[in-house]
């Protein structure tokens, strides 16, 4: 098990997608584009009354706990949606403050050291008081604790006689590969290095799942892990003893919005029934079921509810084609809406950029700068305003689409021969008519090529939607990475590639329809 790691994404775990994916009702409305984005942003910020949205972070333990809460809540009469595999603590926390989600499983250590970092919070009572001030409640511990630890391959540790973290000081040439979140968090690597005075130079950031595989094949020697991770057994790892007691305890709890007690008391009762009911050994075996034995999380959750609480949960499964259809539709909507909005803004921007070279430099510089922002960072910037889900995913894709279209519009217009431009001027056509009747049609092939580039890039980039629960082909990729399940990764990657090829073909066709024959003859 693994609490606060990067585990960034959101998606359907292998064969049993949750069928509901909140927000599906308003997607068609928003498919129009630019201006509509704002409306959708407003819509998405108000939760539906009585409806509960549970979230999980993109690691197996969190997804299992989310499924348990979802199924138990439904069993007790609440209307519950599970937004799976969201892209990290920051996303989930902000989304809960905004009311996009109502509850999610968290760890006390993460709350005090990360979410409420720098406030010197000690102990559950104080956490509870500070959370209450922000409209958030916390259940009592669910029964198992989880904490950060460092792990190595068993054979390697034996050979070097390393048993404790302090022992690492004797081996300066060891290669450390940490999950990106551990590397960056105040309570992660920076404080560990200081506490143990570790001087190793070879420290890299990796995805948590990839770090395990790198460790197994020997390309790194030490990684961070969690004391309930199923992989400890799978990869024959040893957990190094935290001999200085550096890492704080991480008790699993549920966080939920205080207004839930009024909106859905059944659901609050449901998660309170879980308090103290999940033993550490139970959690490890559930993690192993899901990760090693590939049992769908929903089934693991249902089994737990039946065995432990004598409640019959209801895992809902969809077939391969059903899943593919749903994801394709989600993906098409993400790409289509963002591309449409980008076209509406980018072509006028390109026209301005071509008409006023100095302004043009500013415009092109700006859209190029936007293009270089890493997608995760962009999503974090937009989090306070747009939250999670469909809207910020479309907004990010929209921003990324601007560069190719603006660039090609500008280049197409600037590429018109001066003699041709002067001929249009000398006819006595006013500037606006020249632009519409002569310049834009002549630049048409270049503009269309820009849109085509944007579309193809967008189809690839839209997989980031899974980071924030917007669905699409990114979902199976994220889940596949989490479960180390290559066929599942391909279930997202292959259709995305096919869709890109299809888009390529469609634009070739569009060229034949929309570009006058006279321009194709040259």
């Amino acid at each position: 098990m693994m609490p606060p790691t990067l585990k960034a994404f959101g998606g359907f775990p292998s064969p049993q997608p949750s069928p509901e994916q909140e927000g599906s009702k308003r997607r068609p409305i928003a498919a129009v584009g630019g201006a509509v984005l704002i409306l959708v942003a407003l819509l998405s910020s108000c939760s539906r009354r009585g409806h509960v949205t549970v979230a999980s972070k993109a690691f197996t333990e969190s997804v299992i706990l989310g499924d348990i809460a979802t199924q138990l809540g439904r069993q007790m009469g609440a209307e519950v949606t599970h937004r799976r595999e969201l892209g990290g603590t920051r996303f989930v926390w902000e989304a809960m403050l905004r009311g996009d989600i109502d509850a999610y499983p968290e760890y006390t250590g993460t709350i005090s050291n990360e979410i409420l970092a720098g406030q010197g919070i000690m102990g559950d009572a104080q956490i509870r008081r500070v959370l209450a001030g922000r409209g958030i409640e916390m259940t009592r511990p669910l029964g198992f604790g989880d904490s950060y630890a460092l792990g190595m391959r068993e054979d390697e540790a034996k050979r070097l006689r390393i048993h404790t973290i302090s022992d690492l000081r004797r081996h300066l040439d060891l290669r450390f590969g940490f999950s990106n979140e551990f590397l960056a968090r105040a309570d992660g690597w920076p404080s560990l290095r200081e506490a143990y005075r570790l001087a190793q130079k070879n420290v890299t950031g990796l995805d948590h799942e990839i770090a395990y595989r790198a460790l197994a094949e020997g390309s790194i020697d030490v990684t961070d892990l969690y004391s309930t991770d199923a992989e400890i057994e799978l990869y024959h790892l040893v957990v190094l003893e935290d001999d200085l007691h550096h890492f704080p305890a991480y008790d699993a709890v549920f966080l939920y919005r205080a207004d839930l007690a009024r909106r859905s008391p059944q659901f609050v009762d449901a998660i309170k029934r879980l308090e103290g009911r999940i033993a550490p050994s139970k959690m490890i075996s559930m993690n192993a079921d899901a990760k090693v034995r590939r049992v769908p999380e929903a089934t693991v959750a249902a089994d737990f509810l039946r065995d432990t609480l004598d409640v019959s949960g209801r895992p809902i499964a969809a077939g391969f084609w059903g899943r593919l259809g749903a994801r394709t539709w989600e993906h098409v909507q993400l790409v289509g809406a963002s591309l449409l909005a980008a076209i509406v803004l980018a072509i006028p921007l390109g026209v301005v950029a071509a008409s006023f070279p100095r302004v043009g430099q500013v415009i092109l510089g700006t859209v190029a700068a936007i293009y270089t922002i890493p997608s995760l960072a962009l999503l974090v910037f937009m989090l306070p305003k747009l939250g999670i889900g469909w809207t910020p995913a479309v907004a990010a894709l929209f921003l990324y689409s601007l560069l190719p279209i603006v660039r090609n519009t500008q280049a197409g217009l600037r590429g018109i021969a001066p003699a041709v431009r002067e001929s249009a001027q000398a006819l006595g056509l006013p500037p606006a008519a020249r632009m519409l009747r002569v310049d834009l049609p002549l630049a048409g092939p270049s503009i269309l090529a820009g849109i085509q580039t944007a579309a193809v890039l967008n189809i690839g980039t839209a997989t980031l939607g899974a980071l924030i629960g917007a669905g699409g082909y990114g979902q199976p990729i994220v889940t596949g990475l989490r479960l180390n399940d290559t066929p599942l990764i391909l279930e997202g990657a292959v259709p995305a590639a096919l869709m890109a090829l299809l888009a390529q073909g469609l634009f070739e066709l569009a060229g034949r329809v929309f570009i006058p024959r006279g321009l194709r003859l040259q």
Partner: protein
Amino acid sequence: MIHLLGVSKSYGDSLALSQIDLQIDSRRTTVLIGPSGCGKSTILRLMTGLVRPDEGRVLVRGEELAAANVLTVRRHIGYVIQEGGLFAHLAARGNVVLMARYLKWPRERMERRLLELAELVRLPRDLLERYPAELSGGQRQRVSLMRALMLDPDVLLLDEPLGALDPMVRHDLQEDLKRIFRELNKTVVLVTHDMAEAAFFADTIVLMRDGAIVQRGTIRELIERPADEFVTRFINAQRSPPELAGRRA
């Protein structure tokens, strides 16, 4: 019809025209000639308002060209450039009627004028549906001329209209152009660097050098009473076929 009064124009550091005074006579063909870079094309561009003079004034039909009237004035001027400057996305027909369509001419009037012009420039009707890329150089210039004449302008400006054509095509088109100028009886200003062509078209020749007018007159005046030695050299530099034949004999 058109007056340039004390006009100077430079592009960056290079002076294109310096203190030019020039009067273009109505219903006559004036040919501007001179070596490359002498400023002859700049004069045409000044007349259409494509460039503004740094000094002096440009008057067209008695009005000084300014931002306020330039669009109106341009509609009374037809402008043809080397290579035609046709719009590749429009068929020949679309190129010719572009401006009339913008001015919302009735369909019949547009069609009537189109066919009239096709006949005038001797362009087969079926070529009207072709795109510029599907036309020969000579055909493109005929279409370009139709486009310039569509609104029946008073003035026709041609900037080396035959410069890019091979000699046979060029010869045919010269004949046609001369006939058209005569039939239409418009004010024509034509730019060329070819003395034979100038002599062929011109009522008046304006010989230019380094942004200044060297001499203005008929071809006979230029030959018989050259203003200076440059005029004679420029005329003699262009040999006529009989000359070439004579030398060989």
